[in-house]
């Protein structure tokens, strides 16, 4: 058990090291830095900068990259969190329904919808939502986080929480406005992961429901809801955890695209803007930051998957 954790940690460390090497090499290439055979000292300097969280300064705005990230990250976090909740709830409940009503049309319909939704790229979903919703219901906005009318002091930089913390008289107005702005981006991001989750949960839960202990539990006349959640989903979770990294991939692309389309002031938007402007330090900085976060997340998920998986008889002997 401990060996496993150490193993994963070491692999993570190795990969992060590899990441720094790659970015170092890319920097050397871009700026045509002449090393004069001073590879190691240069690399040492680079690593020291990294560890002090100094990612350079933007070519365009002149501000340190880390500050830019710090400014934009909370907005992304807020968006990410809301869409995570939505897609988890929709995905797991739809998947469970599809698994349980396997004979009726609901199951086929749900499965087909999820397959279709998984074939549509995020930007198309965003565009489609804008057309369908924003242009018809003008109340729901299609860009930015908050209307220009409102001034909200930055405390936590998460708009919703900041609004709750101010003591302005128009708090409820601002809150409502902020939530409205959240609708489209969060909906866009949630679609693909929800579809994938539906498919994964459905398959996993179906396999579990076929097991004898599920039949035995059902025969005892207990509430179906209870059985499905406490026995069914609990055993279906390990399989779901194993497939979660794919979801992270989807999430990243979705967040970046949605921020771009809806002009949401988050890190993804920053990244794309920097890429379009060829602001190299910002690109490299955000790349490094995001890649390390993704790698760490992957390690955590694989640890979770390992721990929630019940010990099989083979492993115990």
């Amino acid at each position, binding site marked *: 058990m401990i060996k496993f954790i150490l193993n994963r940690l070491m692999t993570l460390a190795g990969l992060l090291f590899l990441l720094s090497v790659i970015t170092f090499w890319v920097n050397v290439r871009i700026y045509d830095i002449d090393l004069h055979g001073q590879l190691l000292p240069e690399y040492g300097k680079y690593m020291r900068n990294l560890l002090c969280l100094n990612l350079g300064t933007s070519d365009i705005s002149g501000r340190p990259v880390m500050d830019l990230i710090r400014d934009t990250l909370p907005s992304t976090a807020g968006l990410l969190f809301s869409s995570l909740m939505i897609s988890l709830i929709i995905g797991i409940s739809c998947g469970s329904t599809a698994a349980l009503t396997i*004979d009726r049309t609901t199951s086929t319909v749900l499965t087909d919808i999820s397959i279709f939704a998984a074939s549509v790229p995020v930007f198309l979903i965003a565009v489609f939502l804008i057309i369908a919703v924003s242009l018809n219901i003008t109340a729901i906005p299609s860009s930015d986080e908050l209307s220009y009318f409102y001034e909200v002091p930055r405390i936590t930089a998460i708009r919703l929480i900041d609004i709750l913390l101010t003591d302005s008289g128009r708090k409820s107005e601002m809150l409502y406005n902020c939530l409205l702005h959240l609708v489209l981006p969060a909906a866009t991001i949630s679609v693909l992961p929800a579809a994938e989750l539906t498919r994964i949960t459905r398959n996993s839960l179906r396999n579990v429901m076929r*097991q*004898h*202990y599920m*039949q*035995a*539990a*059902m*025969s*005892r*006349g*207990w509430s179906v809801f209870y059985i499905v959640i406490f*026995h069914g989903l*609990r*055993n279906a979770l390990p399989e779901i955890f194993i497939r979660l990294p794919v979801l992270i991939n989807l999430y990243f692309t979705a967040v970046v695209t949605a921020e771009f389309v809806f002009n949401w002031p988050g890190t993804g938007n920053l990244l794309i803007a920097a890429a379009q402007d060829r602001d190299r330090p910002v690109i490299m900085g955000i790349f490094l930051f995001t890649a390390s976060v993704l790698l760490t997340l992957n390690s955590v998920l694989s640890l979770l998957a390992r721990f*929630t998986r*019940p*010990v*099989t*008889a083979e*492993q*115990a002997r």
Partner: protein
Amino acid sequence: MPLLDLKNLSISRGEGERNRIIDNVSLTIDQGDIRALIGVSGAGMSLIMTAIVGIRRRGLTYSAERYRIDGTDVQKLSPARRRRFIGRKIFIIFQDPRMNLDPAMTIRRQFREILSLRNFHDRWYRYPGWKSRRMENLLIRVGISNYRKVLRSKPGELTDIECRKINIALALAYEPELLIADEPLSAMSVSSESQILSLLDSVNKNEHLTMLIGTNDLAPIAKLAGSVSLLYAGQIVETGKTQAVLSSPKHPYTRRLIRSMNEMGGELDHDEMFSELGGIFPSWPELPIGCRFGPRCPMAERVCLRTPPAVKLPQGHVWKCHFSAPSDSE
């Protein structure tokens, strides 16, 4: 009044007699009795047993003329009430010992689940910690002495025989009126087999638990079971008290079975016996009409294409054959 009164249960895959996988099976089990349901693996035992507890398979039609548990007509209840009613009265244990238990839960939690949900709060042992005491006592009862370690473990970490004993302990915790066990002795060594057998026997005698045990080997069950029902290809061919059936079997299939068993010195080898008989074991979709043992029966005649009538002796010895008193020199 019998505990389980099931008359003419039929499970079909379509219309007509040939599609009836289980053909008019009747089981009447008295309180405190142990009924052994003997049949080869393909004969439909599991199907019958799961049907009794209400587990249905997709694409199959279920019908029964009468299905009463403890006097209550189960078919008249609403589906929700039926599920709860059957669930409270019957506890089923499947063939694979580990598969009966939730692999993600420790044994302690599985006990807690049964003890909490079964609603024992109206009984006298409601004091703090009664659940732990009860589960420890039950584990000791079934012969598991290292109960602390077992309670802490998950099913994957335990051996087969430990799991089988745990299943019986869980059944005891559940306090059902009828225990249904699907091949509880499959793939076990002789010593393990006798452990489980004596355990089942003592449970039946002390806790007065009625049992329906499905098996394909009559010999080990013969001492345990009070009565037997023999199942062939979805039809029950003979039912009666163990002593009566063993000493004077009436149906040709039973006679063959008992004869093989005695020849083999107490062991039953279905394959050997069937190869002697010739023919193949009928399975869907090629089910014979009328008496399904007909194609292989040495006494078969044209009349066997019609469903044979039930012949009854006093003391509940029943069999289905057109030739009611075959000569004993078979």
